[in-house]
């Protein structure tokens, strides 16, 4: 292990294997004493070739593959994909299906935000909050398991609708769980806003102005904490969000503390929306028929994942397999905000700053290859695999 790099800077590497990161990513922080003077990011350790894999599977199989892009927000990936394919096939899922999709998406948002609260608290050395928030997160995990049969990969969506239904017993259980979670979320908000040591680690740390957030293309709660009113559920409602509108939650401070507050307030709004869905759950069918072959065409499908805007590009040539699926996950958009606000902060703030955007590494690791006109070529699966082996050798 060499002491200094060629530029004579003292670099503290975080990752790819590091206790702060539960997924592999590599960050290099140049420090002077405790002050960070430079930050660099390197991703790609969990590239799994999912986009290429999607081209080899048929439209239905792809739901299950794409759900596995992310281990936390799996449902929203399947939702983005099915909404896109339904648009291509000119099919609209029945209202009850849309409502159930929205319900599961909001439950997933709660689980994701509570998970993040724990992780971020752990990065700041507040393990008690970590343990408590994860204990309470089990409530929403149990609810999701009860509704869908799975804790993480819910497999709720099918093309043209959903495959699970809600009955009175489940609805009562959800309401009971929500009451408990709401009370706990209020408690966490109080902790976040009043605990002196915690405020010392979050207030005025990693402050990002609204202009910066817009220039860097931040999305999701990270952007909303800087005052950017950007939430697809409000701007371009999809699935059940026409019927059950959500509130746009923003803060103006732009620091870590604001991100905590925004996410917790979003949880509170999730409880409200879910209750509304349960109150006015539309009746009717759960799914409509979708043809096996999707008509030729291409579409963009945008949804609001817990971490921000998720974009799917889907292209069909009229067969039973997609021609191209491109996934752009929200984590990728937010990396720029970390590296640009890191400079000038203490090394001790870095883990929290990294966690502050709620990064999901396996989500954003996919290959980008810029084709120049003179060397354009098509890569086969075998080529890609070989390239990957050579790259990491």
């Amino acid at each position, binding site marked *: 292990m060499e002491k200094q790099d060629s530029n004579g800077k003292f670099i503290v590497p975080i990752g790819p294997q590091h206790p702060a990161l539960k997924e592999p990513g590599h960050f290099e922080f140049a420090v002077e004493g405790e002050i960070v003077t430079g930050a660099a990011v390197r991703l790609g350790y969990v590239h799994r070739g999912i986009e290429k894999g999607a081209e080899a599977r048929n439209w239905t199989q792809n739901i299950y593959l794409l759900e596995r892009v992310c281990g936390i927000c799996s449902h929203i990936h399947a939702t983005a994909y099915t909404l896109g394919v339904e648009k291509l096939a000119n099919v609209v899922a029945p209202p009850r299906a849309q409502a159930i999709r929205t319900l599961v998406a909001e439950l997933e948002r709660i689980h994701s935000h509570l998970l993040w609260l724990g992780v971020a608290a752990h990065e700041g050395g507040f393990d008690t909050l970590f*343990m408590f928030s994860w204990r309470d997160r089990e409530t929403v995990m149990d609810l999701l398991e009860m509704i869908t049969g799975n804790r993480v990969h819910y497999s709720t969506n099918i093309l043209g609708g959903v495959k699970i239904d809600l009955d009175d017993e489940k609805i009562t259980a959800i309401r009971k769980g929500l009451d408990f979670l709401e009370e706990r979320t209020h408690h966490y908000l109080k902790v976040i806003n009043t605990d002196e040591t915690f405020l010392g680690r979050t207030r005025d740390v990693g402050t990002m102005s609204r202009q910066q957030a817009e220039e860097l293309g931040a999305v999701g709660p990270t952007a909303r904490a800087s005052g950017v009113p950007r939430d697809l559920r409000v701007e371009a409602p999809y699935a059940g969000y026409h019927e059950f509108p959500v509130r746009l939650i923003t803060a103006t401070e732009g620091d870590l503390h604001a991100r905590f507050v925004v996410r917790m307030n979003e949880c509170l709004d999730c409880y409200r929306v879910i209750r509304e869905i349960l109150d006015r759950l539309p009746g009717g069918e759960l799914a409509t028929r979708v043809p096996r072959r999707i008509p030729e065409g291409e579409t963009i499908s945008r949804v609001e994942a817990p971490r921000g805007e998720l974009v799917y590009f889907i292209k069909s040539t009229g067969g039973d397999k997609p021609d191209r699926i491109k996934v752009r996950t929200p984590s990728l958009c937010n990396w720029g905000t970390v590296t640009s606000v890191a400079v000038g902060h203490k090394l*001790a703030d870095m883990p929290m700053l990294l966690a502050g955007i709620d990064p999901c590494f396996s989500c954003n690791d996919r290959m980008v290859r810029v084709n120049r006109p003179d060397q354009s070529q098509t890569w086969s699966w075998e080529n890609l695999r070989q390239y990957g082996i050579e790259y990491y050798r």
Partner: protein
Amino acid sequence: MNTAWILLSLLIFPGGLFLLGSGLVYEWVDRKLVARFQNRIGPRWFQPLADVVKLLAKEEIIPQEVHRGLFLLLPVLALAGALTAALYVPLIGFKPSFSFPGDLIVTLYLLSMMSLCMGLAGANTVDRFSLVGATRTLTQLFSYEAPFLLALLGPAIVTGSWQISQINAQAGNSLWFIITQPIGFVVALVGLMGKLELPPFDAPEAETEIVSGALTEYSGRGLALFRIGKDVELVIGLTLVAAFYLGGLANPIEFLLKTMGLLVVMAGLQSLFARLRIDQTVGLWWRVGALLALAQLLVLILLRG
């Protein structure tokens, strides 16, 4: 005092083996309490012992580009310092094995050996996490040491003696110093937490930033010795604070009740706060801790004079 007695007190009881054992027990109580406060189940009673046995059985890897002698010597030195310090404090409520006027200062210096050794151990390697950890360890040493010393000087000045056994005896005869010198007690207890690098003062070994701080490169025996050393320091530190501020330690039952009571408070404090950054730690100690301790010391001196 004959030679056999000296050897016995050094190696078996109350120093040596017995102290190592009680260190592990106290570590378990601390871990279990923190776990329960955090709504976890926590380790079983033999976990600290199992950890130590496991570490001792493992290979000790000596990294490249370190000073071999120093690398092997520092853990031994740290543990030896802590074990020696134990001879001057009223462990288990018994009279200290050795005692002489001014042993308070010697004991405190021996206790600081641990942090110093850890700092040197970190600086000895070329690992970047260790280097940052070593800097933080030493920075923290400079921040808590003075207030901790001042806090322990309070009872010493009131009793007019710098001998731990005498202060202990005097504390038992008068009103508990925690009532007459509450600030000193708080500073001493929190100082002890800083000394042991317990949360929220665990910036020197913050795992989410610098993996394991100064001890990142240590494995096997060296790590085991450092850990035992810390456990021993926990017991000695609790004994000192209890003897000075909680009305002295006259018998084993008092010892057990008072030190365990302190440990419960400490475990509570550990689970209440988020980790302080190293600059916040230094700020807290010099802007608040040291000033409060100094003010109390001034009052004591003026009242006596």
